[in-house]
């Protein structure tokens, strides 16, 4: 699926089919079998009432990473980063997946929600992997010094279309409230990611059809990130 060989940075939008759906309700334990060798284990993922739990969209994102594992190992990323790390399920899974590299790969994770940052830290510790976790808005404070340095960025953004006023809510609402077309936060994330992504870097981001993923890819290509792949998950809202 990924070409993995190009010098240009690429973007993979993991599209969740079924437009207008809410971010899924937590389904602990679901769909975790068969993944556990390469991913975080659901029973070890920490939780907090104000933190988004791993759901189907988290699993879709980790599945996208898993299916690119060989290419990611070849990429030998120096820095990997998750924006909006929530429970920590995704960044922990990525760190576990790439553990065999022994290449010194370092991990960073940010969340605007303090409880999410602490939950992520607990999840990382429970799996014996490490990322530095920072409470901040997207990548604020890191954008200058990390410019062009991050090789893998993973994001499960707040993509649910909501009234604009729900943007900026504290706590768990910040994990899903996406404003008009679910794009308001995504539109702030994209230029920030463009800044920090290295020339060979990859962005993995979850999006709904409502978010117009082709337009997202188009925007990223206008920003100089010229290749992208779509990963369709037509099975997402079955079950």
């Amino acid at each position, binding site marked *: 699926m990924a070409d993995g060989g190009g010098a240009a940075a690429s973007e993979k939008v993991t599209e969740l089919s079924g437009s207008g759906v809410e971010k899924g309700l937590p389904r602990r334990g679901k769909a975790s079998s068969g993944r556990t060798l390469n991913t975080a284990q659901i029973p070890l993922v920490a939780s907090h009432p104000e933190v988004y739990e791993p759901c189907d969209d988290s699993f879709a994102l980790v599945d996208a990473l898993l299916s690119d594992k060989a290419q990611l190992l070849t990429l030998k990323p120096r820095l990997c980063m998750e924006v909006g790390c929530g429970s920590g399920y995704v960044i922990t899974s990525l760190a576990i997946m790439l553990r065999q590299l022994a290449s*010194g790969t370092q991990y960073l994770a940010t969340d605007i929600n303090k409880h999410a940052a602490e939950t992520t*830290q607990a999840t990382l510790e429970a799996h014996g992997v490490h990322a530095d976790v920072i409470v901040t*808005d997207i990548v604020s404070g890191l954008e200058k*010094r990390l410019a062009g*340095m991050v090789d893998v960025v993973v994001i499960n953004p707040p993509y649910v279309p909501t009234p604009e006023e729900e943007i900026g809510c504290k706590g768990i609402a910040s994990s899903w409230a996406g404003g008009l077309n679910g794009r308001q936060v995504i539109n702030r994330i994209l230029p920030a990611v463009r800044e920090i992504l290295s020339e060979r870097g990859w962005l993995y981001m979850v999006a709904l059809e409502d978010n117009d993923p082709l337009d997202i890819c188009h925007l990223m290509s206008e920003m100089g990130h010229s290749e992208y792949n779509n990963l369709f998950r037509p099975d997402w809202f079955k079950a």
Partner: protein
Amino acid sequence: MRLLTHNMLASNVRGATTGYPLKLEAAKWVTKEVELNADFIRGLLPKIDWRALVAATRALGLPELLPEEQPPEEEIFAEGAAGVEGSAIRRIHHALLEIHVQEGSLVCPDTSRCFPIDKGIPNMMLHEDEV
């Protein structure tokens, strides 16, 4: 928060010019050993602000850990240096990746705005009137 991350963080508070480097005030820190990877350090070192790293180690009360000036690369990456106790590369590796600041704060050099580090997590969030 490791010193690698400290090296990458700046303050975006209103009124800050560069907001960098953040002054480190550490009340509690621990060290955790991790395997040294010379290639990783080699790739990373050009991106590291040496003065900010040195300032951070001194703020932790480790004046001997790193010299004021960055040692020449041929010394840092000399054959076998990674296996020598106290070599430059081991000190750099230790400073960047093995020190974890648990409690303390990061202070904006321009505005003195203080960002707390709590349970190892720096909080860089700004209030609406600070953006």
